[in-house]
């Protein structure tokens, strides 16, 4: 009897101390006790979960080797069956310049040997997303949303190239859109889609329709009346665009030299 009490007491003491000690050891990479561990690392595929260990079984083949992957070139997001929307999403007919492999790290495109940024085809490219009196307001509201999320930290909310990253001096050399009126729609699209200078390709984070929306939105920084609607009629749609094309055509021969 005496022995038994001692044994039970000893066991209790040991359990309590092990529990106390166990609660003190903290593993930073463990999220703690779970009721159903196999529900957290289940065989069903969840994004960014490492399947190297499922139900306490190690599987080297399933081990995660990469967290986020760039969508392969040519993949089209599903946007319903609206033919115009689908057409916007299809692969772009202008290929990136060969050097973008080393300067902008582009992979998987058909590369062009000539500098496609200055080709006639690009200079003549106009925005396929047609601006009308009906869609103008929605398009610019949408553009503002995309611009604020993806561009404003460098290019500035006013498009003057003075975003918060310039103000803190972290980054230098973002141009003012107002100085770049000679750019064609195609060139603006090209710069966002494939990158330009220090700016990388944004093809993986904004889709083609969003980029064309941005092209319209950027035009408004250059001309505040661009795309505005008065009395149900679109301003400067017929006047501004051909003028720009003429200007582009004027610059063109020099650039080709």
């Amino acid at each position, binding site marked *: 009897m005496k022995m038994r009490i001692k044994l039970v007491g000893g066991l209790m003491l040991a359990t309590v101390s092990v529990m106390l000690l166990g609660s003190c050891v903290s593993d930073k990479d463990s999220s703690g006790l779970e009721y159903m561990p196999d*529900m957290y690392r289940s065989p069903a595929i969840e994004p960014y979960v490492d399947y190297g260990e499922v139900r306490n079984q190690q599987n080297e083949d399933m081990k995660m080797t990469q967290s986020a992957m760039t969508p392969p070139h040519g993949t089209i997001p599903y946007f319903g069956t609206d033919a115009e929307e689908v057409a916007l999403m299809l692969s772009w007919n202008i290929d990136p310049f060969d050097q973008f492999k080393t300067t902008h790290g582009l992979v998987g495109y058909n590369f062009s040997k000539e500098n496609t940024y200055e080709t006639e085809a690009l200079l003549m490219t106009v925005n396929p997303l047609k601006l009308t009196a009906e869609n103008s307001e929605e398009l610019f509201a949408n553009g503002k949303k995309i611009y604020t999320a993806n561009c404003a930290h460098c290019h500035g909310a006013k498009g003057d190239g003075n975003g918060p*990253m310039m103000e803190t001096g972290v980054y230098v050399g973002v141009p003012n859109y107002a100085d770049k009126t000679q750019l064609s729609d195609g060139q603006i699209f090209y710069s966002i889609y494939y990158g330009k200078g*220090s700016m990388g390709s944004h093809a993986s984070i904004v889709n083609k329709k969003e980029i064309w929306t941005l092209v319209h939105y950027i035009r408004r920084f250059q001309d505040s009346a661009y795309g505005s609607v008065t009395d149900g009629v679109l301003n400067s749609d017929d006047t501004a665009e051909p003028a720009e094309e003429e200007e582009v055509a004027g610059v063109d021969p020099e650039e080709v030299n």
Partner: protein
Amino acid sequence: MFKNFNKWCLGAFAAMLTLGTFSVNAQEPEAEASINGGDLFKSKCATCHHPFKDGTGPKLYDVRTAWSEGGAGAEAIYQWVNNWQTAAASDPYAAGVAQKKATAMTKFPDLTKPQIVAILDWVDSQEEKVAGAAGGAAGGAEGVEGEEEGGFSWIWIILGVLFVIVILAVSGVRRQLKAASGEAGSDTLSYGEEFKAWAWGNLRYVLIGSVVIFITLIVVLFQGLYSIGVVEGYQPSQPIDFPHSKHAGMSGIDCKYCHNSVTESRSAGLPTVNVCMNCHKQVAGNDDEQMEKIAKIYAAAGWDADAQQYTGKTTPIVWNKVHVLPDHVYFNHSQHVEVGGVDCKQCHGDMTKQQSTAMVQPVVELNKIEGNVQLTRPTLTMGWCLECHAEKEISTGSIDNAGGDYYQEIHRRLLYGDKKLYSDYLEDGKVTVMELGGWECAKCHY
């Protein structure tokens, strides 16, 4: 100061050389004073050039000296800026420069010579930035706090063990004393028997004590059970110690820039390394610690910072998932952010102040944020979700802007359908997520 003065002299001397005559030189700098070289540099050149770093274009510091030492003609560099092709055709050094970089320089025919001189003078007057040592201090403080907490419970355990040892030692001494004084029967009693005798003698106190201990143990047990599956404060180690405060806070980058699928997908998305490179191609870090971290991005992207080009050899980064929900719950980011118009802060806290990588913010921290719905249950538990669904008014969000009859239908049901919902609505005048079915099991479990 003196060093700076030297640079100015050098700049002026270079200008002198290139302008040819002293008489012109004597006037030109006066005229230049009205031209702001810095502003011109920022608007025209800085897209590709940096004073001290090779970027898309080569560094521009002391470039005139480099050209004259390389044997370029006095006018060649100005010609180059106006039109690099004519300069390359007439000057052998310029022709060599044209071969250096793959990307062709933009032509600036509208820049006058005094303007170019002002730009280059401004560049030469710059001083290379000394590495900033700030940052990372608060991240360290967090770690210290955690250690202190761990040490605190260790101290209690050590104190407890010492206390038991002291009691045993004291009672041992007492027994020895008793044995020495020759009290009858005391040497035959063991510790257990002695305790038993004492307990029978003080039965009332022992009973009260036992009840207190029993209740305490039950409470501790249930607290322990309640902590299972609660992941507040979970912050796994990451391959790169990413400071959110620098990116979302200081640099003002929108959350949606890096976590760009948050409006379209179930998962908020981790940025692919090309998104990092959109800025880090230029931002290489100011001190050793930063440079070490950013070098990992370069390795992942296959960017050779010395040669300023991509090598194509990539070594992907594997991030550890922080906010993990069990498989029997369905959560969709776009439904909350895009449709519901919920701010990221409601669940993730103020990331502009998070000095390190992501962490499951405890609910007390979330409640401190202005505009957040006040909740009591631990973050990422079901109670936490339900509380918010019961409190949060539905947002007319983007669906309302996009038109459609979604809310008309809800309004119709409110008026003619569910009488209870309608009376609830009349009571407080607001429609919560719960009142539209936010507490239905099958909303999240299916």
